[in-house]
């Protein structure tokens, strides 16, 4: 390793190649990133433990020395703090779990980690997020707001805001995230990185602190589609005994085709139109007046690039797009109120210091432990599930959920993938939207419908805002695929990234 060489500029793929080639050890890589994490000013990390990380790196070096050559061995990452970990605290961004230590690792953590059967990645720590993954700006973290490395006065998006900020600032090469209504795609878009939420059920939810069980899904966040493909290949797969909603489908290697595409594109016979035949559907409802001009401009320019690569654009209809907001904000809080009922101050989590009896202990412990947004969603969820309102709200929302899923299937008869903006705006200023939490829900409009349908979706860096108000902030292009079509999404994103360099841009200044 040359002295001036910046390891943090390398992709996951390139880091893994250098580790496998013996040019650098996992301990050296881990020390380099730990130094960056130690000095970070972004509020991205909630927990770091250098001893734990270095012990994992040593174990990775032993495996490398023994000749093991697997695609992620020795590469560091960090986990969103909703994945439970034995070796680090897990708070889910909540005071409720301030001193919680899980007795087990989440399946995703195991699959990526250094333990038996794992991909051999080194965990650098736990990443900030909105409390119980409820939020779009990371401002609902009970600990500290995370900041956007492109402008420290702005939010990095949420709920996987710490993951996005840390990857964008090159504090870590990759991170895990979770997406219930857009929590991987939106922060990826707002920080200029790449993230994919796979089909519901692709990744095990075992050990993910539950928010809305019929929507929650884990996925990778990294700088490129190729890096996401490498991580997703290791994260995904059936977990039949531990998650009854994990899909019983074979594990797919998402990366090999992408690596081959690289080679193909270097050669003399590089195809001029690598995406020839791909039909991209543009939902009219995603390109309306509600979307900022800065965002539309970048998204349209990205779509023009797709046309240059051989894809054709067709108009499609997703007529219930606007309805996805009330439908989601009935269903998700209903499931959340049920999931969060486990926090009773008895088995784990915060217990109030003073109370009169058992019921009072529940009430005081929960009221002290939950922040404003979690409280609000528990209230909404309890109300819509209560006697007399269940049919009008919860059941009605579930019926519209089916119609939304059917509309997507109709659209997919006309196209292969669907594209549009991820978020109607670029990253906003910290504190700017705090006054009206319900108005904030409207900003989730482009991500909620595919979440309700359980479809895979990703965010791909597509450019930057050019207006003064936009502050030069990144814009993401959303790609939505049909069920199980993660490989197609990643391939389409990869071809775009071989032709553009938006994903290579990095925030200036110190982090």
């Amino acid at each position, binding site marked *: 390793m040359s002295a001036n060489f910046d390891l943090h500029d390398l992709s996951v793929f390139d880091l893994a190649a250098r580790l496998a080639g013996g040019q650098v050890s996992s301990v050296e890589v881990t020390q380099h990133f730990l130094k960056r994490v130690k000095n970070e000013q972004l509020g991205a990390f909630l927990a770091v433990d250098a001893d734990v990380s270095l012990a994992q790196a040593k174990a990775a070096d032993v495996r490398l020395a023994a000749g093991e050559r697997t695609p992620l061995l020795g590469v560091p990452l960090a986990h969103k703090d909703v994945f439970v970990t034995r070796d680090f605290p897990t708070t889910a961004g909540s005071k409720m779990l301030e001193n*919680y*230590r899980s*007795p*087990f690792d989440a399946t995703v953590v195991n699959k990526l980690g250094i333990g038996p059967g794992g991909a051999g990645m080194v965990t650098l720590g736990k990443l900030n997020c909105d409390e119980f993954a409820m939020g779009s700006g990371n401002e609902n973290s009970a600990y500290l707001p995370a900041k956007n490395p492109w402008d420290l006065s702005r939010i990095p998006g949420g709920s996987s805001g710490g993951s996005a900020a840390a990857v964008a600032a090159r504090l870590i090469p990759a991170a895990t995230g979770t997406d219930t209504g857009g929590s991987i795609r939106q922060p990826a878009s707002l920080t200029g990185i790449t993230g994919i939420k796979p089909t*519901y*059920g692709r990744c095990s939810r075992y050990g993910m602190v539950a928010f809305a069980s*019929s929507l929650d899904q884990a996925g990778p966040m990294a700088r490129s589609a190729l890096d996401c493909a490498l991580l997703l290949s290791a994260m995904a797969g059936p977990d*039949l*005994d531990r998650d*009854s*909603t994990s*899909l*019983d*489908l074979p594990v797919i290697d998402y990366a090999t085709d992408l690596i081959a595409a690289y080679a193909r594109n270097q050669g003399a016979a590089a195809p001029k139109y690598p995406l020839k035949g791909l039909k991209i559907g543009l939902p009219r409802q995603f390109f309306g007046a509600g979307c900022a001009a800065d965002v539309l401009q970048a998204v349209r320019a990205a779509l023009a690039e797709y046309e240059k690569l051989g894809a054709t654009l067709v108009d499609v209809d997703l007529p*219930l797009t*606007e*309805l996805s*907001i*009330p439908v989601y*904000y009935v269903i998700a809080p209903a499931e959340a109120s049920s999931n969060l*009922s486990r926090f009773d*101050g*008895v*088995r*784990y989590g915060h*217990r109030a210091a003073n*109370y009169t*009896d*058992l*019921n009072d*202990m*529940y*009430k005081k412990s*929960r*009221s002290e432990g*939950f922040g404003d947004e979690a*409280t*609000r969603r*528990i*209230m*909404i969820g*309890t*109300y819509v599930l*209560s006697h007399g309102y269940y049919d009008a*709200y919860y059941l*009605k929302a*579930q*019926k*519209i*959920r*089916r*119609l939304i*899923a059917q509309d997507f299937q109709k659209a997919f008869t006309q196209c292969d993938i669907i594209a549009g903006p991820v978020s109607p705006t670029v990253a906003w200023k910290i504190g700017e939207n705090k006054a009206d*939490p*319900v108005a904030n*829900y409207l900003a989730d409009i482009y991500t909620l419908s595919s979440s*309700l*349908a*359980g479809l895979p979706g990703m965010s791909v860096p597509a450019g930057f805002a050019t207006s003064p108000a936009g502050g030069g902030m990144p814009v993401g292009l959303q790609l939505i695929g049909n*069920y199980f079509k993660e490989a197609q999404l990643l391939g389409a994103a990869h071809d775009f990234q071989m032709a553009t360099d938006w994903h290579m841009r990095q925030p200036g200044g110190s982090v």
Partner: protein
Amino acid sequence: MALTPHDIARVASLARLELRPDETERVLGQLNGFFTLVAQMEAVNTDGVEPLAHPAAILGSVALRLRDDIASEPNQREASQRSAPAVERGLFLVPKVIE
């Protein structure tokens, strides 16, 4: 139909939450704003539509599974109780329930 402070108190009690008066006031305003948004759902005709509880239900080929009702995890009582607020002799402690 707007919610009243009485509704908020009832729901908070069902959810085992205790709201201060100023919080009740704030939550009331926010929930009323929220249910104005939710009223849009009424306009959608859902006659004859089955509720969709779960995306897996539309992935025809994928059935939700049940596993055998047997313990599959090793006993980790001590590790599991390490984060408990109050434990004695392997038992979770709660305030006296029976007088």
